[in-house]
């Protein structure tokens, strides 16, 4: 494991904005799609 601490993990070696910006938007897309399918059940 390469992370010294939780803060280190979230910092992603200075690329936090880009890494989390990608993962969070992807997760939001998935959540949105599933909610949309549930709504139209």
């Amino acid at each position, binding site marked *: *494991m*390469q*992370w010294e601490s939780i803060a280190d*993990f979230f910092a*992603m*070696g*200075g*690329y936090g904005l*880009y*890494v989390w*910006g*990608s*993962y969070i*938007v*992807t997760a939001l*897309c*998935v959540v949105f*799609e*599933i909610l949309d*399918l549930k709504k*139209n*059940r």
Partner: protein
Amino acid sequence: MNIWKYSSPQYFYPLAKKMATIFFVFAAVFTVWGLYIGFFVAPTDFQQGESYRIIFIHVPAAWMSMLIYLIMSFWAAIGLIMNTRLSSMMAHALAPTGALMTFVALWTGAFWGRPTWGAWWVWDARLTSELILLFLYIGYMALRASIEDPRRADRASAILALVGVVNVPIIYFSVQWWNTLHQGASVSLTKSPSMATSMLTGMLVMALAFWMYSIAVSLIRVRRIIRDREANAAWLAESSGAQ
């Protein structure tokens, strides 16, 4: 057992629900496993630092965006040629998920390109053809939505899907055919992959997760489409209490 009976919406409808549940479970398991490898096992890249960890969603999303288009066109073609209702419904059900995967591939690509290339977007052949893929998905859905008779919408949208399929090999081979800023394939069927084993494993497990997820949501969506289109069918009225 006659498996062909599942080409009828009536028999496929309950089967799709069972299959979707199984595929959702697999999707969740592979996502947890893949993210664990991606964030805790795979080492830091010696050139790109931690920014490369975006590939664990970028590459699977990009693969799925192309693959879903091929599968969507396949079902659209079957529906057009054989005049089978369920095939066209399946093509219809795949389009939104394909569009979502294309959007994710473009978005994560931009977030990787900014620190790596210094630009969110460049008009390079790979990026441009992937953007065209997004427009094809949107065009397909818009065309469907604009035609009221679902059988006519099936045929018209199938032709659009089949014309657009030429774009998929263009995306795939763009990095070989043109001098693109986008890097060439690190994983291909003919060469051994040019990356660390744990990075490759994480990417492949995430690709499996995206596969399972795409199948699961498409099955749920095709059930919704069956409900809409077969709303007057007696079998649906009978099963609606139980489902």
